[in-house]
């Protein structure tokens, strides 16, 4: 009997489309820059500094809210969440809270997994990222930490799910589906290191829920769930009670590690942020955001339908910027392939991208075009999918034609025998056969060996 596994996720996503931080005008473009260049009194928590909300952050966050079918609260508030840590300049984080009279940005959304299950999204809110701590050499022997505030104050959107996932695969799928949805509205987290971090909550057989903090990437989320379920299951079988705690994820060793202990019970002492007025979401703002998402998608949809593609395929392709981009390129390359391209993109390629966690489709579509041009000749669906997988993974693709009937090759076999008659007439049978097979395989490919053998045998037996 399978004991119940419950997984809930708290996903932190950097709003990478913004040019400035959440509460100050420092540039948000910090990757690859020297430490402490994008800083100001606000994001370093200097005395006397005050936060000012980036209007655009609300709009970008609302795009995600709508894509996840969540409802915005007309009024939401910012709160101070107090905890001391060297990467947090004010020793409190400005975030949103859903108790004590607080309201987050949005509530009650959903995301459908590939297997059809609907995962509920309890709430979505805005908050700021802390800075980053580094160590010279080994952490164990370092005498001090090095703190970089470039990331401090970067806008995050936090997406909190209900514990609706029941397996590591579902958790992984959620992150992958979410990543796709984010890129649909331009938030391409795949392109930015550390832009999507997950706190994974796992409970086994109705036991206590354990939180694994700061897991980066869908694959790691899956591994973290696998390990944590294993750990909790083992304890359960031994009769040891699982303790409710926060654990860290060790990417290298693929295990979760307990933190020092429960003596310091984290108490955040939430208080409304007195320097920030409430966030007001008006009808006008909602419409503006919907237009921004929809407009471009609608344009793409109409264009594809105008190409003669059916509505369902058009909907699928227009909603994913990657699929759309490839569709356009193939269409440009070889217009006659557009129907087939649409079909394959919406079905096989979409499936492969999810299945193999493909970050992005190749810029070069020539391999795909080759596959599509020879699609009818590919003997079976699995082989076609293999070719597509090769292309997606960036490998060079050469489609060998499968001979489907002997009629296609009969003339070529006869011709090969006739052209080489003088060369082979004095060879004994086996050598004659090998020689001619060599030529025929070079022409038709190893895959067709069986049918070539059959036909060559027949032709040779009819030849004097």
């Amino acid at each position, binding site marked *: 009997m399978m004991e119940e596994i419950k997984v809930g996720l708290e996903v932190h996503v950097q709003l990478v489309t*913004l*040019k*400035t931080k959440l509460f100050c*005008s*420092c*540039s*948000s473009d910090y990757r690859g820059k*020297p*430490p*402490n*260049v*994008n*800083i*100001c*009194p606000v994001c*370093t928590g*200097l005395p006397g500094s005050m936060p*000012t*909300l*980036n*209007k*655009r*952050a*609300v709009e970008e966050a609302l795009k995600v809210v709508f894509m996840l079918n969540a409802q915005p609260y007309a009024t939401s*508030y910012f709160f101070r969440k107090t905890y*001391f*840590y*060297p990467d947090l300049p004010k020793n409190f984080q400005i975030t949103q809270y859903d*108790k*004590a*009279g*607080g309201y987050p940005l949005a509530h009650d959304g959903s995301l459908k997994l590939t297997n059809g299950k609907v995962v509920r999204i309890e709430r979505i809110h805005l908050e700021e990222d802390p800075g980053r*701590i*580094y160590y010279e050499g080994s952490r164990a022997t*370092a*005498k*001090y*930490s*090095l*703190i*970089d*505030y470039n990331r401090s104050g970067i806008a995050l959107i936090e997406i909190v799910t209900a514990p609706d996932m029941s397996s590591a695969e579902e958790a992984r799928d959620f992150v992958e589906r979410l990543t796709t949805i984010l890129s649909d509205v331009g938030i391409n987290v795949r392109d930015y290191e550390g832009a999507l971090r997950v706190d994974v909550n796992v409970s086994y057989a109705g036991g206590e829920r354990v939180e694994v903090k700061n897991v980066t990437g869908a694959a790691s989320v899956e591994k973290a769930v696998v390990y944590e379920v294993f750990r909790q299951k083992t304890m359960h079988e031994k009769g040891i009670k699982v303790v409710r705690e926060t654990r860290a994820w060790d990417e290298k060793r693929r295990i979760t590690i307990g933190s*020092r202990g429960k003596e310091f019970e984290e*108490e955040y002492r939430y208080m*409304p942020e*007195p*320097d*920030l*007025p*409430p*966030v007001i979401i008006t009808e006008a703002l909602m419409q503006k955001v919907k237009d921004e998402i929809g407009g471009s998608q609608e344009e793409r949809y109409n264009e594809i339908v105008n190409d003669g593609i059916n509505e369902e395929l058009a909907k699928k392709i227009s909603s994913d910027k990657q699929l759309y981009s490839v569709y356009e390129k193939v269409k440009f390359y070889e217009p006659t392939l557009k129907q087939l391209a649409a079909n394959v993109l919406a079905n096989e390629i979409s499936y492969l991208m999810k299945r193999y966690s493909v970050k992005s489709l190749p810029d070069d579509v020539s391999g795909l075009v080759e596959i599509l041009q020879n699609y009818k000749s590919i003997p079976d669906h699995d082989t076609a999918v293999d070719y597509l997988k090769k292309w997606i993974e960036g490998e060079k693709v050469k489609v060998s034609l499968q001979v489907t009937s002997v009629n296609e090759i009969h003339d070529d076999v006869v011709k090969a025998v006739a052209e080489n008659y003088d060369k082979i007439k004095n060879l004994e049978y086996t050598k004659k056969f090998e020689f001619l097979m060599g030529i025929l395989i070079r022409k038709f490919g190893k895959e067709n060996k069986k049918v070539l053998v059959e036909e060559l045998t027949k032709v040779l037996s009819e030849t004097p």
Partner: protein
Amino acid sequence: MKYSINKLSRLSMLKIRKDEEKMISKKVLAIGELLEKLDSIEPPKEAFVLAPEGTHERNDIPSNFNSDEIIKIFNSVKDRYAKGPKTL
């Protein structure tokens, strides 16, 4: 003792010296008396936020603060990083 100086100082990351303990206790109790007066106030039916008035008007346009001016005031710096205590 309702207001545990030990617990509150620990939560507030403060150290109370022996020579100031008595004085601080007096102040804490005096403020405590003011707090206790609130007991006779009818609590609101629902928690609420008394938010400041004002609007959010900042556009997403970067502006540069001279970061060197801030690094200059850091207590300890190494290669532009702020040097801090070791975290486990």
